[in-house]
C-alpha cells in the first residue's frame, strides 16, 4: 500500500482528506505543524507528501526546501491558500511537483496525487510508443493508429491524446489538461476543454469499439478499456 504524509494544520480538513484518501486505498499519516511534519517526513518512508503552505512553527515551503536540500525526493503536492498568483511559481521553486489551490475539490487533489505517483514510477523509462488496446501512438513519428487504421489528429489533439495515454486508467481533470496540454494556469469559464475532448473522441472512438475515452461526471476524463 502506498504511504502518504499530509502536513496540514487545519485538523478537520486534514481528517476528511485522510478519510477520502484511505477510501481510495492509500495509507495516510498526518502532521499538524511544520516541526512534526518535518520530523515525520524525515523518519517515514513516504511515497508522497501533501504539504500546506501556511503551517505553524515552520512554513510549508521552507520545510520542503529543507527536505529537498537533505536529498529527499518523494513527490510533493503543495496546498496553498486561495488566490496568490505567485504561489505556484514559489511552490515549484521550493521543490514542489504540483500545486493545488484551496479550497480544492477532493477529486482534483486525488487525480493529481495519482498523476504524481504514476510519474514517479515511470520516470526512468522514456517511451516512444504508447499503446492502449488497439490504439497506438508513435511519439517520434507523431502517428496514431487504431485497429491498424491511421487516425489524423491536429497537433493539439495529438498532445491531448498523449497526455491521456500517459495517464491511462487514471482520472484527469479539466484543469490538469489546461495546465499540461495548453500550459494555461487558470480556468476559462467556457467549456473549451470539453469540446476538444469530444472532437478527439469522434476520431479515436466513433468507428471503433470498445470506446476508450470516458467522461467521469463532475470530474474529468479517463482513458481505459472498461467503460
Amino acid at each position: 500500500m502506498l504511504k502518504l504524509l499530509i502536513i496540514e494544520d487545519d485538523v478537520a480538513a486534514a481528517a476528511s482528506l485522510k478519510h477520502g484518501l484511505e477510501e481510495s486505498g492509500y495509507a495516510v499519516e498526518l502532521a499538524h505543524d511544520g516541526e512534526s511534519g518535518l520530523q515525520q517526513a524525515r523518519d517515514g518512508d513516504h511515497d508522497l507528501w501533501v504539504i500546506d503552505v501556511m503551517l505553524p512553527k515552520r512554513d510549508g515551503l521552507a520545510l520542503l526546501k529543507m527536505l529537498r536540500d537533505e536529498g529527499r525526493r518523494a513527490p510533493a503536492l503543495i496546498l496553498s491558500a486561495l488566490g496568490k498568483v505567485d504561489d505556484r511559481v514559489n511552490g515549484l521553486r521550493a521543490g514542489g511537483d504540483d500545486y493545488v489551490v484551496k479550497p480544492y475539490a477532493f477529486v482534483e487533489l486525488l487525480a493529481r496525487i495519482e498523476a504524481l505517483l504514476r510519474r514517479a514510477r515511470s520516470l526512468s523509462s522514456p517511451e516512444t510508443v504508447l499503446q492502449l488496446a488497439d490504439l497506438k501512438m508513435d511519439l517520434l513519428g507523431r502517428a496514431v493508429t487504431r485497429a491498424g487504421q491511421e487516425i489524423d489528429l491536429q497537433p493539439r489533439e495529438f498532445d491531448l491524446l498523449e497526455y491521456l495515454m500517459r495517464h491511462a486508467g487514471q482520472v484527469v481533470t479539466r484543469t490538469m489538461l489546461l495546465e499540461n496540454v495548453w500550459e494555461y494556469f487558470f480556468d476559462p469559464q467556457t467549456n473549451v476543454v470539453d469540446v476538444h475532448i469530444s472532437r478527439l473522441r469522434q476520431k479515436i472512438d466513433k468507428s471503433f469499439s470498445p470506446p476508450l475515452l470516458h467522461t467521469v461526471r463532475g470530474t474529468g476524463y479517463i482513458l481505459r478499456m472498461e467503460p
Partner: protein
Amino acid sequence: MSGIWLAVSLLVLAGAAYWLARRRQQNLALLRNRLVAVTQSVRQTGDNIAHDLRTPLTRLRADVEAALRQEDGKVHRAALERVLDEIQGMQNIINALLALGQAEAGGMRVKKKTVDLTGLLMEMIELYAPSAEERQLTLKGRIDPNLTIEADRQLLARILSNLLDNELKYVPAGGLIMLSAAARGDKLEILVEDNGPGIPEDMRDKIFERFARLDPSRTVSSGAGLGLSLVRAFARVLQGDARVIESSLGGAAFIVTLSTSAADVSRPAP
C-alpha cells in the same frame, strides 16, 4: 478580500494625512477628498460583495431547507449537487476579487518574458474555435505576423480568455467574432469584436466596473460581472488599458492596448 486592499490603502492615506497635516495645511483638503473617495469605494465594493454572495447564499439556504424537509435520498443528492455548484460560483467570485485586489494594489508580480503574441493569439483561437463552432459562432483571426511583447503570458492569456468567454456568452448563434492584433507605433493593439448586441454608449465605461452587467439579474449560470474588471486591471498591470467602442461589424469592439516593452512594469499605471 479586495476590501482588505482598499482598507490598507485607506490606512496608508490616513497615515499620510496625519503626517502632512503637521506640515502643510492646504494639502489636507485634497487628502480628505481622496479619503472620502476611497471610503466610498470601500463601502460600495463591500455592498456589492455582500449582495453578490448573499444571492447564492439565499438560494443555498432555501435549497438545503427544502431538501431537509424530505426523506428521499435522490432529492438530497440533487440538492447537494446544486450546493456544490453554488459554492463553485462563490469561489469564482472570491478568486476574481482577490486577483483584482492584487492587480489594482500593484501587488501582482509580472513574469516578464518575450511572448510571441501572434502565436498566443493563434493558440487562443485554436482553444476557443471548437466551442464557438458548437454555439454556431464563427471565430476568425486577423493577426499581424511576428508580433512580440515583453509581458506575462498567463496574464495576457487571462485577458483574452475573459474577452472570448464573453463573446461566447453574449453573441447570439450565427454571429461572427473577430480577433485581430497589430502594432501601432510603440504600442500593440488587440481587438476582440463581434456583430452581437453591442454595449450601449452610456454603459461603455461603466461595464468595466466590478459587478457591472447589462442584465442585472443573477442566476447560477450568469456571470458575476467581474470579467471585464479583470481585463482592465490586468491590462493596466501590463502598462496598458482596455476599453470598448462600437465595432464596424455592428456589435462591441473591445480594445486592449499594450506597450511593446511592458518589461519593467510591476505595478499598474496610475
